[in-house]
């Protein structure tokens, strides 16, 4: 479906209106408005301390807003927190996996907490899908950063939530692991899941998102497609610049990770 047309016809998966939140007198969110269309990928772009994580925590019912509305598939986060928790899954900033349990035990635990039948086979399916079958019996504490993040995202997918929120999903990952996460996010959206991801990396937003919202000093300063955002600036001038490979391209070529 074409994102813009569908957005006007269907109820937004996430709808935020005039959201305000302060901590000890410091206003972090000053009236945020944002809509995310079902099945789209929206990147929330902002520098450190812009309020991205605060917004994400309000959406996932971990924090109460001071004013304004936030709804997930029509369910208001404060009044219908239980319904929101059924529909939305959060992957936080720090890869919250249990390091003592194995990867498989982590998945089984989440499946049990989501009250699903046959947690074991759900876990095995996800291990397979995320290339963790071999590591599945090892303690998650022994995993590399990329594997942890894959396990983390796999845990968020249990119960097929309609909306996935990824808070800085690639912060601290090496380039190869970053590409793996990007591929996973694209797969999710292709399967109809709505994805809201926060990032401080401009190229990540550029690579993944259907629409980009820029959060700056507590408000969304601009929201639109990449083309729309680019059109905000003066038209491109033609300059001749020698095309050097980026260090990332060099790194991936040397380590054989290019895909």
């Amino acid at each position, binding site marked *: 479906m074409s994102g813009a047309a569908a957005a006007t016809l269907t109820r937004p998966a996430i709808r935020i209106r005039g959201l305000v939140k302060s901590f000890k007198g410091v206003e972090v969110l000053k009236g945020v408005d944002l809509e995310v269309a079902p099945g789209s990928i929206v990147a929330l772009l902002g520098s450190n301390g812009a309020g991205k994580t605060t917004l994400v*925590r309000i959406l*996932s*019912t*971990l*924090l*109460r807003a001071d004013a304004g509305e936030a709804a997930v598939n029509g369910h208001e986060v404060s009044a219908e927190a*239980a319904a929101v*928790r*059924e529909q*939305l*899954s*959060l992957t*936080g*900033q*720090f*890869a*919250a*996996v*249990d*390091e*003592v*349990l194995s990867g498989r*035990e982590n998945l089984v*635990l*989440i499946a*049990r*907490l*989501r*009250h699903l039948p046959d947690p074991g086979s759900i876990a095995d399916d996800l291990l397979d899908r995320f290339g963790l079958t071999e590591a599945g019996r090892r303690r998650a504490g022994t995993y590399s950063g990329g594997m942890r993040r894959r396990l983390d995202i796999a*845990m968020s997918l249990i119960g097929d939530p309609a909306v996935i929120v990824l808070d800085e999903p690639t912060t601290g990952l090496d380039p190869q692991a970053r590409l793996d996460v990007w591929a996973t996010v694209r797969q999710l959206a292709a399967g109809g899941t709505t994805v809201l991801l926060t990032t401080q990396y401009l190229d990540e937003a550029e690579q993944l998102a259907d629409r980009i919202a820029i959060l700056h000093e507590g408000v969304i300063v601009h929201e639109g497609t990449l083309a729309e955002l680019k059109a905000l600036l003066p038209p491109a001038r033609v300059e001749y610049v020698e095309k050097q490979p980026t260090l990332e391209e060099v790194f991936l070529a040397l380590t054989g990770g290019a895909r």
Partner: protein
Amino acid sequence: MSTLALADTAALTGRSLRHILRSPDTIVTTAVTPVALLLLFVFVLGGAIDTGSAGSYIDYLLPGILLITVASGVAYTSYRLFLDLQGGIVERFQSMPIARPSVLWAHVLTSLAANLAAVAIVTGVALLFGFRSGASVLAWLAVAGILVLFTLALTWIAVVAGLTAKSVDGASAFSYPLIFLPFISSAFVPTDSMPGPVAWFAENQPVTSIVDTLRALLAGTAVGPEIWVALAWLVGIGAVAYGAAAVLYRRRMR
């Protein structure tokens, strides 16, 4: 709803019990210091202590040692809760459709299992070194019940410490005064051998009534009114700590 709460608590308790089974050293560590104290007092200091009671000194000493075991064991509970809060896994659980209190109850039930295991080890060692009890099955059940209440009350204090701690060290520091409290009670020596103000404190703090009750039950002698004082302390402390933990937990999640 309540069956879901039970299922969630069971799932999360299974998780933290696994943590303990994979690092059983935490239970052994909990038991080592009380066992060392037991041996020190029985074989080094005990010969010079006149308890004025008929039984051997190890019989006199064991109830206090068991309380010290629990007091040091609950520090692991606040430590584990603190790490869960730090690592973000509590937030992950909270963002899911689960009964929220089950996160705390899982830690509490795990604490109960771990501390009773440590208490069993210490009691086993005491038996090896000559502890004997002529208590009836009913009296043993009463001893177990009081130790369970004691562990629950101290565990809820540990939960408060875990919820409010700013650092790993801070999370377990609360247990030092709790471990020290039995020394200023009737656990090691009779309170009437202490100078006035100290004796007054010792006689009126919770440990003395609990120790005296356990000692009477284990000796198979008549239990006096101190059992009601002990139960009132245990239920009171447990209720206050539970209330504080519930408020702190709810406030944290806002």
